């Protein structure tokens, strides 16, 4: 459902009595205030980090927390200089893991979800159930043997170790399957076959365009999930030049416990690390097919 649809759902306004003052003018403040309280709670830590990033180390622990400081440029310079610009390395790594990983994941989910939704074949239900069981595996339980096997294959502590393990997303396959089932009419598939299209060609030129909104959602979900992932890279990687920004910030925070001067770096880094995600999130808002999540896709 797009933002526009959410804002103006037909049928709902019809409860407003015709003529006179519309009902929505009266008493709307109770739900509005309730929601605003929630919004303030959700924005407060974000506001705090914006303010805290402007403080120098000395100001961080001495001035009132919600009063801006004067150290923003100094903090940025320090962060930029930290171990020869390592922070930017982490950001680029995150962009690489999340960008490439989500792209491959959306492609894999799309082709698998479509096959599971639109073909009847022996073993279909068992394949789906086994893939779905993958959702339930606790990440740590998986990550330890994944690490050991990667180490045996000589891939531990490489970009591959994080990337490969991010591609298979049982949840993405599940979403793609729901989407394909709802968005692709059987008649269209049948018609293409009657026209003589091969199955691969049918998928490429008919199915992919029809599934595009669902695939964008899977891509966004995976992008956020991989960018925010901590455990997998934390276990797989030892070399800090390959760290994504989550693991990098955690190691900084850990050192900060003994060197409080690093706290300003952690805070400034945290602010910068969430900016790309917030921008991506706000600008692509209308592409999130959130109705997928409640299993309520209508074609």
């Amino acid at each position, binding site marked *: 459902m797009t933002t526009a649809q959410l804002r103006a759902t037909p049928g709902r306004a019809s409860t407003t009595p015709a003529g006179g003052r519309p009902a929505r003018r009266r008493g709307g403040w109770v739900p509005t205030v309730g929601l605003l309280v929630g919004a303030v709670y959700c924005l407060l830590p974000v506001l705090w980090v914006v303010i805290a990033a402007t403080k120098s180390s000395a100001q961080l622990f001495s001035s009132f927390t919600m009063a801006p400081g004067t150290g923003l440029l100094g903090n940025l310079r320090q962060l930029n200089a930290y171990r020869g610009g390592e922070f930017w390395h982490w950001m680029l790594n995150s962009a690489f893991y999340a960008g490439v990983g989500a792209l491959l994941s959306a492609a894999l989910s799309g082709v698998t979800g479509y096959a599971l939704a639109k073909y009847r074949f022996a073993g279909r239900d068992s394949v789906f159930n086994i893939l779905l069981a993958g959702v339930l595996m606790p990440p740590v339980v998986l990550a*330890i043997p994944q690490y050991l*096997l990667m180490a045996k294959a000589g891939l531990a502590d490489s970009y591959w170790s994080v990337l490969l393990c991010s591609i298979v997303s049982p949840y993405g396959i599940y979403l793609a399957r729901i989407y394909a089932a709802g968005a692709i009419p059987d008649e269209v598939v049948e018609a293409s076959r009657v026209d003589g299209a091969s199955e691969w060609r049918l998928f490429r030129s008919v199915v992919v365009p029809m599934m595009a909104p669902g695939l964008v959602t899977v891509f966004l979900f995976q992008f956020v999930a991989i960018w925010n992932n901590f455990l997998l890279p934390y276990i797989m990687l030892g070399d800090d030049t390959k760290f994504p920004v989550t693991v990098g910030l955690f190691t900084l925070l850990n050192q900060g416990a003994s060197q409080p001067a690093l706290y300003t770096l952690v805070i400034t880094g945290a602010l910068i690390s969430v900016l790309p995600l917030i921008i991506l999130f706000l600008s692509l808002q209308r592409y999130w097919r959130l109705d997928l999540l409640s299993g309520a896709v209508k074609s």
Partner: protein
Amino acid sequence: MTSATPAPGTTAGTSARRRPRLAPYAFITPAVLLFALLLALPIGYAGYLSFRKVHVQGLGLGPGSRTEVWAGLSNYASALGDPELLAGTLRVLLYGVILVPTMLGLALLFALLLDADRTRLRAFSRIAIFLPYAIPGVVASLLWGFLYLPTTSPGYYLLGKLGMSAPQLLSGHGIYVALANIAVWGGTGFNMIVIYTSLRSVPAELYEAARLDGASELQIALRVKIPMVLPSLVLTFFFSMIATLQVFSEPTTLAPMTNGISSTWSPLMKVYRDAFVRGDIYSASATSVVIAGVTLALSFGFLKAVGRRAYGEDK
């Protein structure tokens, strides 16, 4: 989805010739291969390791003095008998009891408020409440960690000005509230959207009918809306339960800022410590297998209990 029998109008012969046999297998092959290599094989390997142990000969020096041997069930016996695992499980249960009802209660409340006819500033609140979803758990814990520290928290500052003392959230039982709050903050918006979306798909005629019968907005919310979104609530409850059992990055990130979180605070943190700090991959594997088994049993039990409807099947 229609059944496999030919639709009226097409001849059975064409349909049978046209029905692809190999294509679906070709389409699922990459996923099945990757799944087998990256998920099934590691799980099997963890199972294998859980039955192994290192046998040390002599002083354990020199080549060949350390060999891997069959351990039987001894890793399982020590994992299940470990008081730390039980303590960690109880901690996570208490954390989940605080977290899940609070998060889903708020998510449902906000979804109903968004859906109420007279609400204003809808788009703004919806985005603001959903926003924390985009923030990594590590960064969220870090931000809240500073907000819990008396020296950097505006809350402590304001209460101090008023001459009151605030409860310490980073010690004692405050830790449960501190951790649950981080997860509530991060997860409420996501669950709110799931519930809200399913509220929007309720036909408006249902509300018209209820209003004609003289129901108040509150009664409509309680008797019409909540029952209609029950499947979404079940789904969000299920995913929240699974996520709770797997809590790892929040307590791990908060740990450097407090003495209240040990390295074995949650069962998964204990698995991590056993495997990577103590280097005992065998007992870590046994503990992992136990946790995976309990998770799977709970999940399948839950799904059986609520039926297939819960996860939106297309049949």
